[in-house]
Structure formats: C-alpha cells, structure tokens
C-alpha cells in the first residue's frame, strides 16, 4: 500500500471538520480541499468571523439566549415583556420560532437540550437548577413547558413539572395539535400560535 497521504495539518483539519454536526467524512474532506484551492480567498473571512464570534457574542446567564457582549440581554431586560411568565424551551433557536408566532411576550429559559438516558444526557447536563432559581427569584406565576412532543421532550416536561412542584407556580404545556414525535423546529407558526393560546395545565 502507498504511504502517500495529506500532510498532517490537513488531516487534522479534516478530522476537526468531521467532528462538527452534519458533516460526514466525505464532505469534511471536500470542504478542506476547497479551502485549500478555489476557496482560498474566503479563509481570512472565516477566521475573522470565528474570532469575533468569540469576542463579541455571549450567552445570557439568565435566559440562555445569545447576546452582544457588554450589552444587556434583549429578552431579559426588555421592560415591555411580561415577567410573570416563563417559557422553557430546548434550544435557543426555539425562542425565535415562538417570537415569530407572536403569541407570547413573557420571559424565556433555554434548557440546552432534553433528557435522554439512552444518549447519556442527564439533568446535570441541562440548565435545570438555573430554571428553579429563576422561578423562585422572579416569583413566576406561570411556567410554560414548550418542549417537543417526542418521548424525550415529554419525559423532560414530566421531570421539570415534578421539580417545579416545590415552587407552587402554575405549570402549563403547549396544547394538542403539536405533531407527535418532533421538536418545535418541525412546527409552523400558526400551529405554535394555537398551541400557545390553548395551553393546558399540567
């Protein structure tokens, strides 16, 4: 067998790309080779974008959504938002979905995933302590669990409802009509609007 292979630096970059979500070994290789060839002029741009991501963007310690470093969180510090309501979502992207539906104007809390013992995701991996702490501090009147209707989303909602019982806040879930087996990213805005308006007590 031939000993010829890519130089170590290229191999390392391919390995790094391959470890990113959504990239298989073939597409990782193609991407790196493109950057070495026709895409060479884009490398500087990418380096700059990645650096400023680190320098300028942070995650709000309260809600878990993204914010500009040195500025207040647009969600947590907006005086027009209803501070009696807290909507719990799996991912930051879910917040944009709910915002676009226009049915909600309270505060948010990003969990950072959902419980999944088969994938080794435990309560310690999610922002659950932070959620309980906020509900207590904010004297939240209603917590809306806007999690997916799949097994993991529902199990997480059941678990959170149990953990929130001590706070004596009202706990609601999105209404029926959410497609079974999927997260919020599969739902259109009209369905979300209806699910939010018709939420039911757990």
């Amino acid at each position, binding site marked *: 067998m031939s000993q010829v292979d890519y130089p170590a630096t290229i191999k390392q970059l391919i390995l790094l790309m391959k470890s990113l979500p959504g990239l298989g070994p073939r597409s990782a290789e193609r991407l790196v080779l493109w950057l070495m060839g026709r895409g060479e002029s884009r490398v500087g741009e990418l380096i700059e974008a990645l650096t400023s991501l680190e320098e300028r963007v942070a995650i709000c310690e309260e809600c878990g959504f993204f914010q500009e470093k040195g500025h207040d969180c647009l969600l947590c510090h907006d005086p027009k938002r209803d501070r009696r309501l807290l909507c719990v979502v799996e991912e930051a992207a879910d917040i944009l979905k709910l915002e676009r539906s226009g049915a909600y104007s309270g505060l948010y809390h990003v969990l950072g995933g959902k419980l999944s013992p*088969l994938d080794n995701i*435990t*309560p310690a991996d999610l922002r659950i302590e932070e959620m309980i702490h906020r509900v207590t501090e904010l004297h939240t009147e209603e917590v809306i669990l806007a999690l997916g209707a799949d097994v993991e989303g529902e199990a997480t909602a059941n678990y959170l409802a149990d953990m929130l019982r001590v706070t004596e806040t009202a706990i609601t879930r999105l209404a029926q009509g959410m497609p079974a087996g999927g997260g919020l990213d599969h739902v259109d805005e009209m369905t979300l609007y209806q699910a939010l308006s018709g939420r039911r007590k757990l």
Partner: protein
Amino acid sequence: MLSRLFLRDYRCFATATLALHPRVNIFYGRNAQGKTSLLEAVCVLMRLQSPRTSTKSEWIRFEASTSLIEGTVNDVDLRYAQNATVRRLAVSGAVCTRSDEYLKNTALIVWLDHADMNLVRGGAEHRRRFLDFAAAQMFPEYRDALKAYERSLRSRNYLLKRDDVIPWKQVDAYAVLLQKHGSVLRRCREALLTALEPHVVAVQQHLSGNTEVAALSYARGYEGDDLAAVLHERRAEEERSRSTVAGPHRDDVTLEINARAASAFASEGQQRTLCLALKIAQARVLEEARGQAPLLLMDDIFGELDKARRQAVLTALPAESQIFITTTFLDWMEQTTLNGHCYEVSNGAVEQRL
C-alpha cells in the same frame, strides 16, 4: 391486490419482474433458491419491515449498493429503495418522507410460516408480535404508540439499571409516558382480540370437523387502568429486579382448546390447527376492519397440509384475498383446484410456468 412486482439487487435477485395473478401465485423450486425472498419483498413493500430480519442492509444483493423493490398495488405504484444506511420511499412516482403516509397506500398482509407454531408453544413475545403486526394494520395510532412505548421502556429500564441509587424522579417521568402510550396499546389489543375470538372459534371448528372448541383471552400486563400508579406501588419490586415490572410489554394471550391450555394439553395436530386458525382469523378481521382483503403470504406450509385442511383453509380465507405460496413440491396441486399462476424459482431467476 398486487398486480406487478419488480426487484433489483434484492437478496439473490439481480432483476426480476413478475406480472401477478389476482388470486393465487405459487413459487416452487428447491430450497435456498430465493422463493421466500419473494414473499419477504412483498412484506417489505407493504409493511416496511421483514419477518426474517431487522437488519435492512442484509437484503442488498452481494456487491450491490442499493436494493430496489417496486410494486403496483390497487393501481398505485410503490417504490422502496434501501442502501446501507438510508431508505427511500415513493408513491406514484413522488418521494414520500413519512412512513405513515406511505403505509396508507399499501395493501394489508398476513404472513404464515413454520414459526407460527410458536404462537401456541413459544413464549409470550411471539403472541405479542402477532398482536402488534395485526393491530398496526388496523389502527392508525398503533404504530406510533408502540414505537414511543418501546423507547420509553428502554429508557426507563436503562435508568433502573444505570446507577447504584435509582434516580426515581427521572424513572417516574417515563412511567407517565408508559401509561400514556400503553393505554393505546391496551385499547387496540383489546379490540383486536374481541374481533379475533369469534373467527378463531369458527375456523377451529371448521378445520377440526366440529370437534374442537377454541378460546382466547387477553392476559393483561398490568392491573387496573393506571400503569403509572401500579409501577409506583411496586417500587420495592423494581428496586430488586431493576426493570419495569408491569405494562403491555408483559401482555399475553391465553389460548385454550376444549377448555384446556393449548400449549400443555393439545395434541400437535390441534396446535397446528389453532395456529392456522389464528392467522386466518387475522385475515378476516383485517378484511372487516379495512374493507379490503389482505394478501396472504404462506411460506412453505401450504403444500404440507393434508388435503382436507388445505381445502378447509381455502374455503375459510376471505374470498377476495390474493394468495402467495412457496413450496418445494407440487404433487398436492393435483388434489387442489387452484386458479392462478405458477412460477419456478431457481438460483435467483423467476419464470412463469403456468
């Protein structure tokens, strides 16, 4: 009705094209020539699963990358392509990404083979699989409920085993899901068994010449209506066994002939008849429920029945059912009047003979 079947790179078939008879199709040939694979392909096309394996890449022909099954069912073209990792479905030429949408266009099926003896003699899992296979075709909500139930159960059992100290709050979060999806399974299985019973009794009577009275009843895997509450009560037991002690995964069906347990007291002949009766009853119930006679896929068992049973089977089946039979010998054909096609299957080639 399946009027056309086309295979490419499926098991031992490079390509095969079959124009099928609306009533009876017989595939004969020596063993290991691909007869059963033809029935399996029909099953995969209709149910997206094989009765022989759960490893889908297994049916891709040696050295090929993608296997293809196509069929025309009630004038709708179905297409199923499978490579090592991905499955692609199409209905009438349009890509179909949701299996429930695809399944609305398929025909119903009943599969019969030698393993059916396990329905009477084997463990409860064989009877649960029988219920699942029929219920998934009768009740649109069944398939999703079963998948969600099984995933919840796997997660819960894993949590019960994982740590020295059981994280009960997490375990309980899954008990609620077992209750939710398990109640769907129970309701559908109850309705299925109620529908099956009169047919099993009638067919057993018919096949035995009026001497055997069959009975079946649902042995429920949990008491009462609230599975979550049952599991809460039996916490000490789960602490010891480290697994979920109650639920539809513990369901069974009690089978009797002449008021005695069929597994222990019936003769082999009676047991064989009962297995056949269960499958014929399944065909009749599917026809009642969906207004469409199912396809019957009979792997290697029809020719081995005695003449009386063979005729009795043919009269007991829904008259509109399309039947697919594999067999190694054809001498029984002379004693049985069949209207249909006959194919010889030899080394991955199919040729129509009659």
